[in-house]
């Protein structure tokens, strides 16, 4: 049962990711990216990471995608207005990305993973356990990330505040 779920989710993920890249209309890209995020959230649930799945849906499929949609609509990008890229650039990009792809696939294929001591599946991924780790082992990064967000927030205000020239 879960194997069937895994495969159907994976196929959906890959298909929607391909649509994101290959479709010409930005709006379709954004919409299929939402599908992609939801299927990835499904993967997290299969891995027993419920908290991560929920935050993934709220943050990515919710907040960030709404932002993307707004940008696409506000800038009226839906028209097919992109100029064709020059041939040289295309070939260079294809060669570089293709080389990275081959390297990644080859390296992951020829890797034998070592022994992992995963915590028991029942303990994983629930809010309680995530919270416990966050406020003990990962307390410092948790606190430091507030500096990151604060800095980004000030930046957003400074850059977007309306003012006289």
């Amino acid at each position: 049962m879960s194997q069937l779920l895994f495969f159907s989710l994976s196929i959906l993920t890959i298909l929607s990711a391909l649509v994101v890249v290959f479709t010409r209309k930005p709006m379709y890209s954004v919409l299929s990216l939402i599908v992609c995020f939801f299927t990835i959230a499904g993967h997290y649930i299969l891995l027993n990471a419920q908290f991560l799945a929920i935050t993934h849906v709220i943050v990515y499929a919710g907040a960030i995608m709404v932002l993307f949609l707004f940008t696409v609509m506000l800038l009226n990008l839906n028209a097919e207005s992109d100029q064709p890229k020059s041939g040289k650039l295309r070939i260079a990009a294809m060669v570089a990305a293709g080389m990275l792809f081959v390297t990644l696939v080859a390296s992951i294929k020829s890797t034998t993973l070592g022994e992992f001591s995963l915590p028991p599946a029942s303990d994983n991924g629930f809010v309680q356990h995530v919270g416990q780790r966050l406020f003990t082992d990962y307390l410092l990064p948790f606190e430091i990330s507030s500096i990151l967000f604060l800095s980004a927030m000030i930046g957003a205000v400074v850059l977007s505040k309306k003012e006289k020239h």
Partner: protein
Amino acid sequence: MYTLIYTCGLGLLCLVAEILNLRKLLIPVILAGLAAIFFVNYMDWQMAGPVILGGIDMSHMLQVDHFAVAFNAILIGAAALLFTLSGNFYKDEPQHLSDYLAILIFILCGAMVLTSFTSLVMLFLGIEIVSISLYIMAGSRKFDIRSNEAGFKYFLMGSFASAILLFGIALIYGSAGSFELPKIAAYAAASGMANPMFLVGSLLMVVALLFKVAAVPFHFWSPDVYEGSPSLVTTMMATLVKISFFAAFYKLMSGGLLGIDGYTSDILVLVAAATMIIGNLVALTQDNFKRLLAYSGISHAGYMLLAILSIKTNSSSALFFYGASYMLATIGAFAVAIPVFNATGKETIDAFDGLGRKKPMLAGLLTMSMLSLAGIPPLAGFLGKYYIFSEAIKNGYVVLTVLAVLASIVGVYYYFKVILAMYTKHGDESDVRPTMLYTLVMLICVGLSLLLGVWPGGLMGII
């Protein structure tokens, strides 16, 4: 540990000062705060213990050792010099002063995380704090199209580099099973070379860090961003941020990836050679001062990569000394350049025309900074190069070192272009008037460069 917390606190204080309307006092308060933080940091030198936060041992995230304390000290020093310059630099935008200064302090926080991380989580957070703050500061001159370009370009390229870094971290976590440097080091030594996924993960991480330090072929953003950003932000990027990224790079290579040295050093040799050659050769054709210093920064990144290559003989002292001398020379150069840019209204090398006749002292100080960057004795830049080159030779990189020496001889030519412009050409009658504080910063930078050049024991060999 407390160094970091107090620095964050200082940043918050800046924001509160805006509400309380204490803008006039802001810069003296920040400088006093930095002095206090410097002292707190010095206390850590005496008793480097485990990092405790809220009663929990955080040593697996952050480790305060002599390496971290020493680098923090020069970062705080550089920040103090930059904040001394900032008062006059932002005098036309008092409404933004506290926001800008707060972001600059947060950059210092991120840099401190980078010098002392022991977990890849902290490495990523440190890099992001520094980078995101810099994207904002690069684009902070809203009505200047070049500043917009700089911010946007840096943001797009930097985001890709961060994504590559994260991908690398994920692959390393997948193969080593941990984010912590000691565990990764143990895995790398035991079976790193036999695991392609681990190697590709390290490759991606190295690439991302090479992007951040602007090494060839990942340097294309640097001249444009340096040119477009406000000069003070450019100074920060070229000094504080670059050195902190190098500290992080060194820590990652020596503390985590030493076991796969045979793999990474092949890449780094090529990158270092390309960085030194291309950085110096392209700098020859520049006529914008900030672009010139951007390419000079690229070539200096190439020399510092030699120190990263020599991790086996513990080259951290050489890197530290080089970083300090490079920072002093670059801040000294910009402290002269900013008033000159303001007076002449242009940022090209011919802005300096005739400065030797108009203001002999300024010209003399800029000459000293340029000579230190070029690596001419008795200034600190010479000894910095000497230490790094001798470390490289100790590790058997003779050909690379010869190349580095040749490249730095080429470098002398373009540093002299500025010096010649000051002394042999006639400029317009624009009046260059640096404030007292600018003169003070110039004198401190050049004085310390001279001091370190004749008495390197002050900084060399303390790590």
